[in-house]
């Protein structure tokens, strides 16, 4: 991963430099007009959040069942990144909704479950921060529940009737339902997911240094 880090930073940087121009030149959607352009970073934010959740869920499972401390570092990094990108989605969504639906928020199944998912991962971070010794295991179990919830949040728009667009919007768009929109969206999604991976990498490094520091404290106490 260390060898890949610099190329990853460069590729992500280039993508974030290009994507705003592509979004600006993307076609306007018929009913929403300019505000629909929030889509190009609202949906990628959720994709990045799901990347964080995936990493946190898998790493938490490894930590919980195999007691692997390095995996715990990845788990905490994934949770923080999930909260960060979830927050971006939860802020950009209402800004889009205010214009598209006329309201900032609807207690609609997708919006509500997405908020709950964000709260689960905030709970994970709070348990780790304030839970005292041994809270890592409790947090890992919380992360497994959060990860299990994530697919329901994603599919909620297809299962229940909601004001939020269905999951088919993205595949339809990539298949060419709106000519000229697939490239900016695809590159934006890639940029966000790469940024999430970068943040997870850096944050994992920090978690491992913190673990080394804790070991050093214990060594000195002995």
């Amino acid at each position, binding site marked *: 991963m260390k060898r890949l880090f610099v190329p990853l930073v460069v590729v992500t940087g280039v993508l974030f430099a290009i994507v*705003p121009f592509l979004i600006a030149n993307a*076609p*306007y*959607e*018929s*009913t*929403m*007009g*300019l*505000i*629909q*352009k*929030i*889509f190009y*970073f*609202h949906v990628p*934010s959720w994709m990045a959040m799901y990347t964080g959740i995936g990493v946190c869920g898998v790493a938490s499972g490894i930590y919980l069942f195999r007691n692997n401390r390095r995996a715990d570092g990845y788990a905490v990094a994934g949770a*923080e990144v999930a909260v*960060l990108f979830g*927050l*971006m989605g939860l*802020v*950009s969504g209402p*800004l*889009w909704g*205010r*214009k598209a639906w006329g309201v900032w928020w609807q207690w609609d199944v997708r919006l509500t479950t997405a908020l709950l998912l964000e709260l689960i991962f905030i709970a994970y971070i709070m348990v780790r921060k304030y839970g005292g010794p041994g809270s890592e295991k409790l947090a890992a179990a919380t992360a497994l529940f959060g990860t299990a919830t994530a697919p329901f949040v994603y599919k909620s*728009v297809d299962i229940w*009737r*909601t*004001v*939020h*667009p*269905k999951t*088919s*919007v993205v595949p*339809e*768009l990539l298949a060419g*339902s*709106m*000519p*000229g*929109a697939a490239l900016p969206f695809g590159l934006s999604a890639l940029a966000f997911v790469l*940024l999430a991976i970068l*943040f997870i990498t*850096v*944050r994992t*490094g*920090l978690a491992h*240094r*913190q673990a*080394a*520091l804790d070991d*050093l*404290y214990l*060594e*000195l106490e002995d």
Partner: protein
Amino acid sequence: MNRPRGVLTLIASLFLLAAPTLAAQPPAASSEFVPATPGSATEQLPAAPLLVAAYAFVWVAAMVYVWTIWRRLNKVEADMHALERKSRAAR
């Protein structure tokens, strides 16, 4: 009330109840975006400030997160060096 008149009243009542119920249903969720026809103006509330606010928030949130990682990393490294010095002095 005789039977045919009762049935008619029931049907009329159902129709009268069904009409507002059906009318109150939210529109079906969209499954795809439709490109705009050039020149169509549907904007009432200005979209640009909302769009800019969303974009700015994404950047600010990312920058603040980078800053917090940098700060925490510096603190851990400083603590690490201090402890290493202490442990060397103890030996």
